[in-house]
């Protein structure tokens, strides 16, 4: 037989059955039955489409009643919908479908838990089988998978702020379901709290706090803005920088050791206004989880904390939005369905506006120039459901802080005699973040999330100056720019596999490309005859590739013993070098009598990038650089142990934790003044050292009732040691605070009124004071011009030989809310620093020439600050 004949015969053999049989899995069928036995469905398919069924009546029970409405659906999908819940397998043999019963003692219920009103997925919701006394929770995408005994029929779904739902799930086989939880009736609007409904003693995970967003919004506002970062600072184990400034110092770590993720994308600089505000509008946030230790294997790349922020996906059912105006900024959010129950969007914008007011008032004067100081951020997200198993998210964020000054032409009569013809100055910084995520359910037990993301941070300063010196006619036409750009482009895939209730397995991989271009500078004076000293490139242009694989298992080892065992392996390629690290993660939980949980954890974390900052206060100018041959990647080891318990139906939650953390390969500038810092040789100008921190934290939360809030107390020590600094001796971390106490309360006074208060106390931070003064010298001979004296010099001895005063502050806020027919309005009146406590911002040694005295002077910048915010929701 020739080859052509063989091919033709083969083709006929393949095509003939299709032609003769007339149906395949993709055939579109219409079946509409209500409460009819399965037998009826089979008969319809047989009669209408010629699909024959073969089965044993003794083994396959087709008397179970089903309801199905399928118009022109694929045959495969219809069969799956009617047979899978009853554990009936269907196999094609020739032109027949053979039905068999799957012999299985368990069934898996999987799917999503969502807000019934908006379709917003609920992360951390609980699924519980009362008969089996077993349960699980939804992951950060609202997905769950729960395998239980086959005859389990009823499941309890619950989430804070929602009515619990006892749902009977029909059938005896696996089911993919979407559970709609109705918001609690007493609340006019539910703020997804993201605090796990799971009792804390039932979570092996420790050192994690789910930040209740309802508390973020209820907390007293600073200049009219609710803020996530400020709320995070009010948690035990977390402290801020100086009074009024931002920065998260988690368990003695520095701000560069925090991994902030916005919908899975890393963020370089999470603040506006020098850290006073977070870069995100709090109304957009669905959940925020702070991990201070016991890091699950899926996280890596930073030493001290992970702040995992999930943004709202957008209402799938109705259009609505909100708008607010405070003392500093105005904002608007709009969300709704593009196609109901299929595609949704959410879009928001925020801008500070005092500069607009300023310019409106002063720009009326001709020639007064302009001054713009503002921040803005915009967020957009689209969420589309392709099928019950597939959904995709597109998200975009852009935020900036800007200072722009334009000076009008002047004809100065000053000594310089300089006439400015044109002068502009701009300084700005901000993040641009984009991400695409795809959630896919492979089967009842396997879920995946694929993310492709882009994150960029840019700092730019620019100046243009054109002037004429009248006396000489010298023209200056200067323009210059200094900037830094850091960006990450990456992709990752995460799997969530829940084979049995005793195992919750997550595994995945990620690839992240880093591109660092800090310190770019160019300068030009068009009319200058001066020849530059050199044209040295002072910037860095480095690319690095970070790769990660991980696996973790949340495992019930015994009746009372649980473990979370994981391994995070990562590698980093930069400048031809390869660094790698294996980071074991272990969490243990043992259930003690009376529902107390004893927990322990060990984590190893690695960080391949360093931030060049020497003060612990994040600044927009901070520069990220990759590890070099001289400065190896940072790594930390942390052990933690604690007790946890909830009482009174989760009304109260208590946790007590102790920890010890060591940090290696941290950097500190050898010249703290950075007066001669050469960026291209940065690693030669830092010293590499170690740090240790240890302490204990207590958190008592009240989660239900008219009064909610928490009391958190931290006792902590954090130290550092760097060769060449402080004579090589150990010294405390700049933001080492021994005691920290936070009391946060929100009380519902009535249907319309809510009161909140936050009191914060912390002991002082270390400060270096001089230990002597002495005379200096200027020249070799007293007869030299300028004399020989150069005034006094202050002698600094041991680093941090003094502690600043303790700080404390009370903030209060009251919110009035009124529900109208179509919209809701609210007024919030807050007072920051009610009793006007003068907390130190910084200290300096003041020389008072009039009084002929020298003394330590304290500067405070945050006095009592009342604010008012008006908002509407529609």
């Amino acid at each position, binding site marked *: 037989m020739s080859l052509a004949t063989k091919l033709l015969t083969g083709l006929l053999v393949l095509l003939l059955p299709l032609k003769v049989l007339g149906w395949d899995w993709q055939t579109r069928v219409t079946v509409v039955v209500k409460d009819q036995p399965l037998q009826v469905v089979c008969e319809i398919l047989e009669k209408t489409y010629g699909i024959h069924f073969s089965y044993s009546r003794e083994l396959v029970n087709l008397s179970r009643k089903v309801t199905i409405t399928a118009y022109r659906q694929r045959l495969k999908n219809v069969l799956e919908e009617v047979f899978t819940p009853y554990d009936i397998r269907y196999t094609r043999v020739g032109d027949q479908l053979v039905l068999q019963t799957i012999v299985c003692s368990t069934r898996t219920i999987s799917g999503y838990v969502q807000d019934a009103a908006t379709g917003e997925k609920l992360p951390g919701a609980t699924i519980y089988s009362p008969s089996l006394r077993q349960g699980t929770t939804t992951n950060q995408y609202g997905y769950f998978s729960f395998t239980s005994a086959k005859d389990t029929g009823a499941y309890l779904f619950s989430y804070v702020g929602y009515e619990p739902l006892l749902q009977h799930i029909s059938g005896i086989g696996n089911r993919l379901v979407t559970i709609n939880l109705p918001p609690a009736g007493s609340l006019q609007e539910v703020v997804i709290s993201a605090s796990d409904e799971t009792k804390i003693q039932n979570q092996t995970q420790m050192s994690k706090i789910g930040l209740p967003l309802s508390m973020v919004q209820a907390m007293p506002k600073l200049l009219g803005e609710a803020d996530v970062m400020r709320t995070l600072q009010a948690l035990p184990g977390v402290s801020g920088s100086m009074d009024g400034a931002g920065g998260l110092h988690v368990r003695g770590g520095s701000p560069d050791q925090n991994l902030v993720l916005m919908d899975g994308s890393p963020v370089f600089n999470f603040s506006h206004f020098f850290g006073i505000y977070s870069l995100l509008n709090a109304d957009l946030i669905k959940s925020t989880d702070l991990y201070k230790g016991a890091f699950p294997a899926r996280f890596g790349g930073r030493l001290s904390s992970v702040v995992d922020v999930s943004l709202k996906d957008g209402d799938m059912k109705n259009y609505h939005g909100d708008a607010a105006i405070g003392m500093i900024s105005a904002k608007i959010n709009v969300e709704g369905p593009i196609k109901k129950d299929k595609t949704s969007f959410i879009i928001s914008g925020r801008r500070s506006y005092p500069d607009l007011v300023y310019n409106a008032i002063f720009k009326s004067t001709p020639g007064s120039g302009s001054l713009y100081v503002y921040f803005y951020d915009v967020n957009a997200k689209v969420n589309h459901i392709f099928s019950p198993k597939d959904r995709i998210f597109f998200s975009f964020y852009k935020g900036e802080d800007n200072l722009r000054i334009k000076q009008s032409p002047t004809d100065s009569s000053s000594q310089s005699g300089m006439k400015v013809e044109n002068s502009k100055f701009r300084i700005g910084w901000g993040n641009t973040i984009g991400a695409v995520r795809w959630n896919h359910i492979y089967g009842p037990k396997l879920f995946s999330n694929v993310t492709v993301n882009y994150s960029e941070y840019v700092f730019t300063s620019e100046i243009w100056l054109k002037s004429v010196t009248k006396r000489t006619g010298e023209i200056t036409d200067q323009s210059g720019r200094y900037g830094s750009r850091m960006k990450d482009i990456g992709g990752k895939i995460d799997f969530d596999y829940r084979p049995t209730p005793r195992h919750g397995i997550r595994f995945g991989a990620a690839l992240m490309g880093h591109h660092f271009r800090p310190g770019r500078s160019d300068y030009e004076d068009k009319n200058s005859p001066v020849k530059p000293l050199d044209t040295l490139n002072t910037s860095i242009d480095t690319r690095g590739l970070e790769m990660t694989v991980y696996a973790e298992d949340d495992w019930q080892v015994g009746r009372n013993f649980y473990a979370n065992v994981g391994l995070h392996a990562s590698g980093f390629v930069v400048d031809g070098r390869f660094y790698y690290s294996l980071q074991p993660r272990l969490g243990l939980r043992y259930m003690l009598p009376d529902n107390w949980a004893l927990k322990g954890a060990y984590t190893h974390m690695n960080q391949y990038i360093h931030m060049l900052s020497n003060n612990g206060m994040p600044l927009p100018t901070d520069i990220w650089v990759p590890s070099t041959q001289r400065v190896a990647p940072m790594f930390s080891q942390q052990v933690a142990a604690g007790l946890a318990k909830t009482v009174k139906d989760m009304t109260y939650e208590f946790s007590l934790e102790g920890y010890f953390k060591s940090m290696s390969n941290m950097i500190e500038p050898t010249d703290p003044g950075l007066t001669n810092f050469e960026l291209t040789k940065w690693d030669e100008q830092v010293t590499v050292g170690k740090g240790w921190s240890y302490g204990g934290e207590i958190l008592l939360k009240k989660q239900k009732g008219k009064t909610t809030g928490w009391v958190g107390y931290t006792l902590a020590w954090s130290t550092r040691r760097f060769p060449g600094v402080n004579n090589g001796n150990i010294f405390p971390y700049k933001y080492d605070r021994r005691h920290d106490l936070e009391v946060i309360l929100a009380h519902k006074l009535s249907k319309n009124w809510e009161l909140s208060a936050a009191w914060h106390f912390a002991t002082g931070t270390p400060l270096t004071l001089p*230990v002597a003064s002495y*005379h*200096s010298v200027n020249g070799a001979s007293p007869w030299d011009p300028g004399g020989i004296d150069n005034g006094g010099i202050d002698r600094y001895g041991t680093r941090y030989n003094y502690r600043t005063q303790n700080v404390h502050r009370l903030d209060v806020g009251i919110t009035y809310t009124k529900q109208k027919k179509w919209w809701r309005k609210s007024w919030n009146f807050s007072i920051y620093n009610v009793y006007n406590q003068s907390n130190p911002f910084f200290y300096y040694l003041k020389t008072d020439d009039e009084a002929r005295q020298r003394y330590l002077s304290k500067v405070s910048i945050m006095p009592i600050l009342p604010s008012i915010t008006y908002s509407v929701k529609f």
Partner: protein
Amino acid sequence: MKRIFVYTLLLAGVFSSCEKRVNISLPYEGDRIVVNSLIQPDSVMYVRITRSVPVSVYDDSGFEEIPNAAVTLEENGTMLASLKQQRILGRTYFVSTEKAMRGRKYDIRVSVPGMTPVSGSDTLPCAPIIGNASAQRGGSRIQFMLTDPPGSTDYYRIRVFTYGPTHQPDTIRQFQLDPTFNNNIEDVLSSYNNTFLVMQDTRFNGKQVNFVLEAKDPLIDTDQVMIEVSALTYDSYRYFKTIASQQRTATGLITEPIRVFTNINAGYGIFAGINTKRLVFTLE
């Protein structure tokens, strides 16, 4: 660049800040001997001995001198003749009889009854090679030529003086490197001027460079300018460099305070070599 943020922060703080005196007893390390002497080749050595004071002491009179200090100087290990105390311009100096010489190493020892004796040592640097200074009347640019020797790492300090009505270089001027010359936008952004500039020759090692300075204020009301360039040893470089850093970061807001370098064992101050040359010229 960080400094811009300090100023902005401070500016923002001005609107709402309050400042209070903190009444604490500032720490004091105890009285120590302070030795101050910069050694110029071919010149006698002037040594001033004072004692340190608590930080809270306001002293604009040059600090308390120690007249009964025992000061000894050695040149290449050989003790020099006793230093004589002289009162010059209201200050007391211990002045050597011999002149310092290039290529020699000098050691100093100072003891005072009841205080820990101190010591220090250094060598002398080569003279800087400078010339061709010029500036324009009413302008702010000042130029001069500096020839840096190849090979070694050299350190310099630059100062600018203008002549007053008494025809003396009695006014020290604030300046910075010309931004175009320095090719650094930060000079424009920060506009930080000082009365002296300290540098090493990393960017011009072994080259002849036409240095361009930019005076903070235009050169008016004067006819003559004096450029002073001092070659420094590593010790005197670190001393002046850290003084500049301490002055520049005085608030301690974003950096840790800077400790000024000292090479006086068990005491404070500096005993280091310097080699100063000056160019005096008339404005064009």
